[in-house]
């Protein structure tokens, strides 16, 4: 479903490459964790999937589509196939939880009836029915991240990209977020997640890709956190 073909990312000032000759693929319905030290290239990798960053060498495919040859005008519709979750939540601060989730559907051109039906479902899936009308600054970190996950899944994307989703969360919130991601994966959505958290990896017991210095150094089917 996602295919990296010999991808390298170099910077013009000749610093160490962010990615070096990365080749791997992700099958549908997989749950892939990417681990590694800061600066190992995990975030760069995810940015390439959502076309936020371009490879210097190599290609990245979404099914048979070369992501970096998508015309600029078509990018929004491509991005709607992917749900994204970030360490810093990236919620719209002037919108309520409900409106944040609804925004993703509005941007997708969904009807009001669909929005009225699907947004409460998504919020219910992340167990936030009672916080729908709170603004982000009125929510805890774990709650914000759950809103972000609800927003990521509400359009029923094929893939969820999660960049350090538990990075800012306490252990209980971390546990909840991981459970939700697993539940989403069980419902059939591919999940690609980066993390630092050993406990998270050991709990998920799924495929783990380990990166170091821009290279993939390990790729284990049911990995443990090894660094």
């Amino acid at each position, binding site marked *: 479903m996602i295919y990296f073909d010999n991808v390298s990312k170099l910077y013009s000032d000749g610093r160490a490459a962010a990615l070096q000759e990365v080749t791997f693929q992700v099958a549908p319905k997989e749950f892939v964790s990417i681990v590694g030290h800061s600066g190992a290239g995990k975030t760069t990798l995810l940015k390439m999937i959502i076309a936020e960053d371009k490879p210097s060498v190599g290609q990245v495919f979404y099914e048979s589509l070369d992501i970096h040859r998508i015309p600029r005008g078509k990018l929004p519709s491509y*991005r709607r196939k992917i749900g994204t979750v970030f360490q810093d939540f990236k919620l719209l601060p002037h919108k309520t939880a409900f409106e944040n989730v609804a925004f993703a559907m509005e941007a997708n051109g969904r009807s*009001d009836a669909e929005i009225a039906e699907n947004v409460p479902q998504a919020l219910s899936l992340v167990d936030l029915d009672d916080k729908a009308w709170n603004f982000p600054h009125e929510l805890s970190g774990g709650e914000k991240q759950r809103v972000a996950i609800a927003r990521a899944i509400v359009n029923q994307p094929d893939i969820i990209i999660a960049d350090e989703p538990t990075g800012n969360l306490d252990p209980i919130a971390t546990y909840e977020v991981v459970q939700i991601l697993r539940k989403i994966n069980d419902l059939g959505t591919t999940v690609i997640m980066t993390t630092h958290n050993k406990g998270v990896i050991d709990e998920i017991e799924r495929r783990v890709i380990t990166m170091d210095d821009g290279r993939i150094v390990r790729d284990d089917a049911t990995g443990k956190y090894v660094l």
Partner: protein
Amino acid sequence: MITGLRRVTKAGFVGFWRNAYVSLASIFVLTVALFVIGATMFINQLLNVSLSALQSKVDINVYFVPDAPEDEIERIRNAVATLPDVSLVSYTTREEALQQYRERRQGDEISLQALEELDENPLGGNLAIQAKETSQYENIARFLDEQRAAAEPQTPVIDVINYDQNRDSIDTLTGVIDATEKASLIVMSILLIAAVLITFNTIRLAIYTSREEIAIMRLVGASNMFIRGPFMLQGIMYGFIAGLLALLFFYPLLIWLGPRTELFFELNLFTYYVQNFGTIFGILVGIGVALGLISSTLAVARYLRT
């Protein structure tokens, strides 16, 4: 399409209220800018009116000899009237000239008695000629000189052309009018540019605070138009409200200023404001809306480039 438009409109209004401080600051700056633009317009109008009032007081007079034949006077009058530079020619006949003389000298017994002593009217008819621009008097005077030279030396028609006597004051006035127009153009251009730049920057800063939001909207897959729309609408709202506010501020100001400008410039600005309200409304609100729309569109465009 209609759903999209409705959502963009709603997002624009909601954003306007939830960012009340930012909206307020933008409207305030835009109001000041529009006030400057409006004030510039009013000052310009004052200058125009008082300059044209001054101009209408300047003319060239052609005095005919008392026994000038009527058809010859008629010919010169028509010739002058067809000159492109001439805006107005008025003819005073011998009899009217005498009448006016008498009226002017009312109570001046000696002058009137002297007039009675004469058997016939000593005055000739005259033409008062106004040019469209003060700088054109020279051409008209030259034309009149040619007319005088063309006449038979034994039977002159034109007695005196008073351009030469008035020349210095006409030249001075021309210079003053030119300089005033140039100076006001420069000052107004500078004020206008400053107003536009300040508005641009304020709205740019207002949208700078939203750059994170714009990035998030893009990540969620919102199209550029869907992101841009609410900001454009907000820009329009800023401009519209600021235009109304500027109009509102001018009202009491001009009530106070009106009588004073009437004394000095012969134009009551308040009357002008009331009579031309539609135009002034259109200009201020139109400029406000255009400024708001253009500034916000440009400001968002920065964050939409990949």
